[in-house]
């Protein structure tokens, strides 16, 4: 159902951008970032937290973690998070994009943080794991606001940490409203994105919590315990209309990114384990998929097999011009021109961190992992990333990340020229915190970002 999307002025200064182009034109450069920080899976006896990172170049505390919102419990593994409302499409009268909804992927606990005071956000309320388990769900992952002030969260497993996963819906009071899907509509779940003008939602597949949470095991891949399909849902009916099998080329399809234009029926997904990027699009009332990037593995003296690229995150710039991505194992951040969505053209990349990155340190800080979660400024000129994937997987592939902590890095992007340059002056070191070195994962902006906002 389409709602009127007028520009709203809220009591707080959370804008409502009527189109993606308005977000580019009307937004101001990001002053703060909210970044997931975590101690779960380490010997540091402290809870996970939301870090407030000062991104104002004119500030005395630029590049510093100026505030931390600690969770009330340990052991959550905060991972991905989202907003109670899009800056773009989900406005109803009196609703502002003010609350972060932050699930613990291991604990199942869901936290709500009020960002009315942007530099000093506060924990507002918590939904306990037992309440989530009542809906036979666990492993909360992606958070998207949906119309009427409601919130949808993808869940990777059932209450036992097994299959099937599903979706949990919260109301605008941050209470569980219902299980959104019929149990068993899908088995595996991970990320999702909806395109309301086309009444479609796409969801992807990781694995059951009991499979991916202890760590990555090839035995599980061989036993078919990891996902390899995409699901296209009827958004109104909450049912899967089409499932697309990606096969060996499409193992572990993770981030689902529709283009931002509400008219578009195109998008991309990264099949992490197969090191491929797929383009999906609708044609003749059916979704098609095609592999558009195939990253080669590389030989490494210390490895028994070639090192896969492992593209673990992708995002689409707000102008739908570029697809950015991160190859965590090999150590590369890349941007491709997607102005012709079926024929990608490599624009630029930065070889950094990981096993093969040319750049091994920033400001003397050794990089002990590859680039992971990405976030792009709304104007498309600044790309930021962190370096932790998931505590148990970090320990397997980049064990020093636990001892040294993550870093947050930045590249300057020229969208007119299609170039990226590492900002060698920029470094946020999560290894320097008082409680001990922390991992860092997803990044969000207060005014809308390239990985959460959907237009009606």
């Amino acid at each position: 159902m389409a709602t009127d999307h007028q520009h709203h002025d809220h009591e707080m200064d959370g804008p409502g951008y009527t189109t993606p182009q308005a977000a580019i034109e009307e937004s101001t450069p990001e002053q703060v970032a909210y970044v997931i920080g975590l101690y779960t899976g380490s010997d540091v006896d402290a809870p996970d937290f939301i870090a407030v990172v000062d991104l104002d170049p004119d500030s005395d505390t630029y590049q510093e973690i100026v505030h931390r919102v600690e969770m009330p419990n340990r052991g959550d593994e905060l991972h991905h998070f989202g907003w109670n409302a899009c800056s773009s499409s989900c406005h109803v009268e009196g609703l502002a994009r003010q609350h972060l909804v932050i699930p613990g992927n291991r604990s199942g606990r869901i936290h709500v943080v009020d960002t009315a005071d942007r530099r000093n956000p506060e924990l507002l309320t918590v939904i306990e794991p037992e309440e989530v388990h009542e809906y036979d769900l666990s492993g909360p992952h992606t958070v998207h606001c949906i119309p009427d002030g409601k919130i949808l969260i993808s869940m990777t497993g059932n209450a036992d940490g097994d299959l099937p996963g599903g979706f949990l819906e919260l109301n605008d009071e941050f209470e569980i409203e219902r299980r959104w899907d019929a149990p068993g509509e899908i088995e595996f779940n991970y990320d999702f994105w909806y395109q309301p003008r086309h009444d479609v939602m796409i969801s992807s597949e990781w694995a059951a919590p009991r499979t991916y949470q202890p760590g990555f095991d090839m035995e599980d891949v061989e036993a078919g315990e990891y996902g390899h399909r995409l699901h296209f849902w009827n958004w109104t009916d909450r049912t899967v209309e089409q499932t697309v099998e990606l096969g060996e080329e499409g193992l572990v399809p993770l981030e689902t990114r529709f283009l931002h234009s509400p008219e578009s029926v195109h998008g991309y997904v990264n099949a992490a384990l197969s090191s491929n990027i797929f383009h999906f699009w609708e044609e003749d009332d059916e979704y098609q998929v095609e592999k558009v990037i195939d990253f080669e593995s590389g030989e490494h003296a210390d490895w028994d097999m070639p090192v896969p690229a492992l593209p673990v995150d992708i995002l689409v710039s707000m102008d739908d011009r570029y697809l950015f991505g991160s190859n965590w194992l090999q150590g590369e951040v890349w941007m491709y021109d997607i102005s012709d969505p079926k024929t990608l053209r490599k624009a630029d990349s930065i070889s950094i961190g990981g096993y093969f990155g040319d750049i091994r340190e920033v400001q003397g800080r050794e990089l002990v992992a590859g680039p992971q979660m990405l976030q792009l400024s709304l104007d498309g000129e600044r790309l930021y990333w962190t370096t932790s994937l998931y505590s148990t997987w970090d320990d397997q592939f980049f064990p020093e990340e636990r001892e040294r902590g993550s870093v947050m890095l930045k590249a300057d992007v020229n969208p007119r020229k299609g170039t990226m340059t590492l900002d060698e002056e920029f470094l946020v070191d999560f290894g320097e915190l008082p409680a001990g070195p922390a991992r860092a994962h997803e990044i969000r902006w207060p005014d809308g970002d390239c990985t959460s906002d959907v237009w009606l």
Partner: protein
Amino acid sequence: MAPTPTLTLLWRDGSEEAVRASGESTVLEAAESAAIGLPFGCRTGACGTCAGRSVEGTVQYNRPPRALKTRHSEAGYLLCCIARPLTDCQIEVGADVRAEMVSNPWK
């Protein structure tokens, strides 16, 4: 009356702590009641964050340890969040122990 086995926790750096596992408490709960912070996640036996390794003693589970594969259990790994000591136990704990349980399969 419920037994109160002695639980000796061993870290990789050589440090040790002995705590009482009273009543029906799990390894994790026994450590917490002595103000010792062990790694944990789900607290239901699904995620494996709390994995430790038994050196001596017997534990019991009230629900299946889903995060452990047979080979892990055979190697002595246990899940501190749901394992209840039945006898005096010595258990290796900490993030290093868990990391050894699932190593890089390609290296």
